């Protein structure tokens, strides 16, 4: 049996481990190593230690990129989340057509970001896009803009589809939380004469805080990893205004051939994600609210 166990372990466990090692762990370590080099990908790289990181922080473009990420995050936390929580509570309260609404709200989540971006790009088209057409119809021609090219609106124009696509996800997430609350709590509150709003604010919302915590982590890490929306719609433009860390990294590597500096940004992104997850877990100490 022992020999068979060893064979089984090798046959069953070795391939997955090998996969992880080769395509995930090894590249991660290599990224770290590259970040310490000055390298153009062709000639030999020279070891420069932490210079790339110093320069990254000194030159400052990364801060504008992080700022854009934070804009997305703030939109998510303070616009998307309240809206999602409200809708979640509503559709969880036994209304008609609940399944249909859930289906529709979640639909954007399952389609590809590419398709979402291409459609929204058409929306934003100055002459033939839905947005400007709609503004014309409403008599608001002067509000029309070249939304993706205008330095004042570009960042928001890029954030909008991201928020649009994922709201349904968070609605469903909060809905899952709301549905797991014990019905009896509501019943006893109603007996005590509580209104819908009181119940929502005093019972439902406190009880779904663990789910909200997960949502905060997901949206924070997600906003730092955002790439598709910017790359497809603006490639970081106009004049680099819509850059986020991932697109900055992409340009450094594949257009400027600064493998070292690009890898420094890559390492930065990993550290960001890990750090933020840990910080949120610590800050968001959620006590189990018991009745």
């Amino acid at each position, binding site marked *: 049996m022992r020999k*068979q*166990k060893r064979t*089984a*372990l090798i046959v*069953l*466990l070795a*391939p*997955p*481990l090998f*996969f*992880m090692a080769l*395509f*995930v*762990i*090894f*590249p*991660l370590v*290599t*990224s770290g190593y*590259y970040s310490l080099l000055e390298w153009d990908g062709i000639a030999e790289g020279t070891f420069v230690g932490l210079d790339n990181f110093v320069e990254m922080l000194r030159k400052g473009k990364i801060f504008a990129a992080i700022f854009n990420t934070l804009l997305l995050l703030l939109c998510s936390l303070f616009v998307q989340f309240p809206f999602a929580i409200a809708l979640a509570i*509503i559709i969880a309260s036994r*209304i008609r057509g609940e399944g249909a609404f*859930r*289906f*529709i*709200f979640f*639909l*954007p989540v*399952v*389609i*590809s970001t*590419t*398709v*979402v971006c*291409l*459609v929204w*790009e*058409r*929306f934003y088209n100055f*002459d*033939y896009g*839905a947005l400007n057409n709609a503004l014309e*119809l409403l008599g608001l021609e002067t509000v029309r803009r070249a939304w993706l090219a205008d330095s004042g609106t570009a960042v928001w124009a890029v954030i909008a589809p991201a928020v*649009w696509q994922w709201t349904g*996800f968070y609605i*469903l997430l909060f809905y*899952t939380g709301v549905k797991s609350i014990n019905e009896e709590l509501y019943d006893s509150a109603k007996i005590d004469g509580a209104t819908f709003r009181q119940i929502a604010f005093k019972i439902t919302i406190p009880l779904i805080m663990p789910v909200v915590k*997960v949502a905060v*982590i997901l949206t924070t890490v997600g906003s730092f990893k955002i*790439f*598709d929306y910017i*790359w*497809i719609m603006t490639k970081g433009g106009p004049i680099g205004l819509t850059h986020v860390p*991932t697109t900055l990294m992409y340009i450094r*590597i594949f257009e400027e051939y600064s493998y070292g500096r690009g890898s420094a940004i*890559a*390492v930065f*992104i*990993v550290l960001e*994600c890990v750090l933020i997850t840990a910080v949120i877990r610590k800050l968001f100490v959620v006590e189990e609210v018991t009745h």
Partner: protein
Amino acid sequence: MVYLLLILFAFVQLFPFYYMIMLSGKSNREIFSENSLAPPKRFQWSNYQKALLQGKIARFFLNSTIVTGASIALTLYLASTAAYAIKRIDWKYSRQMGLLLLVGLFIPMHSVLLPLFLLLRSLKILDSHLGLVLPYTAFQLSFGVLVLSGCITSIPAQLEEAAYIDGCSIFRAFFSIILPNMVPAMVTLAILVYRFAWNEYMFAVTFTSTELMKTLTAGLSGLKGQWQTEWGLIAAGMVISIVPTVVFYSLLSRQIQSGLMAGSLKL
């Protein structure tokens, strides 16, 4: 009242789909002259004809299908064998190996883009199906192990013990006892891998260079630059690309929703 809000939001969620479908049915003249909000005067199926028969979009679709299918199969296989090995085989290092396999959950794909690119290049599998299948599988593996090991834990050990007493080997036990009991979890995992692989953009656009090998995501977004005036065609391509997803979603919406939720909440 409340229903108004819900219906309004449903409209917001559905509008882009309406717009895309309308766009796919318009000829170029219509796109560049009419009010874009209006439906086409007569639905131009020629856009779809061109998209499917002219070759490019059909090729993208084929590539996506191959890459996604292979990724699903490989992920399911590797994740199930790994989960079984960790949870059911008595070994000193089971726990550590288990944690090691979950590492992929915390590593953003973007951060390994360059090394992966160079690795695939040296393995000469850039611009190939394999060049996408392997990274996709690797990055879905952790999640797969998480989901399937949870499932395996819930299968009573007595089933295998009875089999061992009957002289069954570990492999036989795996294939004839464990796997059949994991089917629902595997289906859920398959759906989630499908969604990831079918929609993935960054690797697809970085690791493929010729149009012969591009998947739908890389290909359609690439058409944007070339076929500036053929937006109806591109829209048809977009509709075609979301048809499988919408079909799966319609048939399995409950499973998809709960699968994504369960996966996220485990974090």
